[in-house]
């Protein structure tokens, strides 16, 4: 009943062309036709407003660095400091130990990589089948996929918790990994890409050569799907790294992921603000690094696929 609200989105997407000419290096590149749409030059007012928006976006992160590099007295003075202080590495080291961030980082890396890998693999498989293979119930299957997007996974935490306890996975990483091995949005994303980017003739040619479906998937689909797979991987990684509710419930401080470990920093009785910020900075650093390197691709992926995992 709720799936209908997604339909316009599919329609809206069909106006966004996938750039299939150079699949191996596909970035966000609007086609010429689109580039021509709505192209007033930005005036000074627009730049000022954009500058303000950028400050709004980046200042909290900058302030995290400022606070993380100060000591507690400097952070808590009035007016607050606006320039970084001298204590950055001291604080990072202390926060690393206090919040057991080393272990948390490792856990988050394992969890996010496993989830992103399996999401990409299964999403590509299912997306391929839904886009290009004919079978009974395909439309229903696609409808179900879209429908599942509307069900927030948080609602099932009580039985999930019981299930994990029974399986002996309480406080263990598999408890966090398994429920998120697939993503409906990922499936939909890959389906949209493949139905436009994968020519039917290629599959047909593969069939004529006697290739079975898995072989076609491996040799024809995967090479073409590599760019959106990379984008889906990164976006899923970000979501998995930042996921909070379920890991917070099922893990504890002896074996946390980064977001869970960060709550430890703020829950102490004596709150050292600079240490809290140092921990927050450490926990965000890997993703920020990814954004600095691949920001352009992630932006392109979100614009093309509206991915939210």
């Amino acid at each position, binding site marked *: *009943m709720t799936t*209908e609200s*997604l339909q*316009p*989105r599919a329609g*809206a997407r069909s106006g*966004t062309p996938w750039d299939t000419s150079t699949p191996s290096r596909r970035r966000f590149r609007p086609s010429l036709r689109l580039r021509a749409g*709505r*192209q*007033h030059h*930005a005036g000074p007012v627009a730049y000022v*407003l954009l500058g303000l928006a*950028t400050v709004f*976006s980046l200042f*909290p992160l900058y*302030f*995290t660095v400022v606070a993380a590099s100060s000591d507690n007295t400097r*952070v808590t003075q009035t007016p*607050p400091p606006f320039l970084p202080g001298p204590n950055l590495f001291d604080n990072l080291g202390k926060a690393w130990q206090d919040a057991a961030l080393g272990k948390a980082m490792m856990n988050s890396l394992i969890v996010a990589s496993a989830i992103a890998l399996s999401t990409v693999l299964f999403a590509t*498989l299912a997306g391929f089948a839904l886009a*290009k*293979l004919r*079978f009974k119930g395909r439309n229903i*299957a696609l*409808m179900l996929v879209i429908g*599942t997007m*509307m*069900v*927030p996974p948080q*609602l*099932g*935490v*009580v*039985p*999930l*918790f019981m299930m994990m306890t029974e399986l002996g996975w309480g406080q263990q990483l598999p408890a966090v990994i398994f429920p*998120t091995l*697939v993503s*409906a949005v990922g499936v939909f994303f890959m389906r949209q890409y493949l139905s436009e980017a994968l020519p039917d003739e290629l599959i*047909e040619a593969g069939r*004529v050569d*006697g290739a*079975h*479906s*898995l072989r076609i998937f491996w040799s024809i689909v995967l090479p073409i799907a590599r760019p959106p797979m990379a984008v889906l991987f990164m976006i899923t990684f970000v979501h998995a790294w*930042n996921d*909070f509710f379920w890991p*917070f419930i099922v893990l504890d401080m002896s074996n946390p992921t980064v*977001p869970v470990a960060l709550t430890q*920093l703020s*829950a102490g009785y004596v709150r050292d603000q600079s240490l*809290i910020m140092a*921990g*927050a900075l450490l*926990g*965000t650093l890997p993703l*920020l690094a990814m954004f600095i390197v691949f920001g352009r691709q992630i932006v392109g992926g979100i*614009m*093309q696929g*509206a991915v939210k995992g």
Partner: protein
Amino acid sequence: MVTSGSVPHADGTQNIPAGAVKAPGVSGDGDRPRQGRRNLLHRLDIKGAPYAFIAPFFIVFAAFGFYPLLYTFWISLHHVELASMNLMEWRGFGNYTELWQDDRFWNALSNTFTIGVLSTVPQLLMALGLAHLLNYRLRGSTFFRVAALTPYATSVGAAALVFTMLFERDFGLINWMLSLVGIDNVDWENNKWAAQSAISVIVIWRWTGYNALLYLAAMQAIPRDRYEAAAIDGASRWQQFTKVTVPGIRSTILFTIVLSTIGATQLFGEPLIFGQGPNGVTGGADNQYQTLGLLLYEEGWKNYQMGRAATVAWAMFLLLILIFALQRVLKRFTSRKS
């Protein structure tokens, strides 16, 4: 009927199996039994592979998404404690009547609603404006886009920690700035509306850029001639924005409303961390910013009442259904009007 719009390729692929079934016959040159087995395998592959490919998604979803959702309802009909989860004592709808009479539930519901409105409305309006700006021909457009999306890469934990500090009553940056214009010592944690606004700011900060990029993508798909036609008709820039741009991205706007609404009903991490420790789970000393998500957690993992936690979860689910039913009615109503 729902998918009819999103499966435009159903017809385009129709001739694949036909050609594929023919293929072995055409090129087959082995002896007959072998060919028969091959044919069988091939038919199996054609018929079975699609199901095998979609199976992982559906199996995992069934096990960890659908089954827990249904089982939540079953648990909500029982008295279950965290320490003895195997002992389930039938209560019928007892948990529900109890929840209905519980002030904390209505308080959490109303908080979820007000924080939802406070965070979603400004977020989407700002995203619309930002997308409009990003849609100009710009120097450094990639920089502005990536910068706008950076908060999205920040985890709830880190974001909430920074904002908690910025909103600190005694030494926070925001109170210092407010004191410059004569507003003193806003108690962002204990004052109900201040706390809910501060939490909304965290949500707005994290998601505005993301929504702006969705709008931007949709805006770029609007054909240019619509603007030209509007310009010829003498429409001002503002009229072009309201008469061409906004209707042109209507479906994306609806989509973001749906996403933000789901997000708003599930709000948990921001208020939890904003409350710092013991106050987090209860949403402040007077539950002034306790959301339904926090109430669920409090019932289940602080009060050890899993049955009641499941009841809250199911109530959240019903709430979502209600919201979407309402949205559909509204949609039908507005489309009939226009």
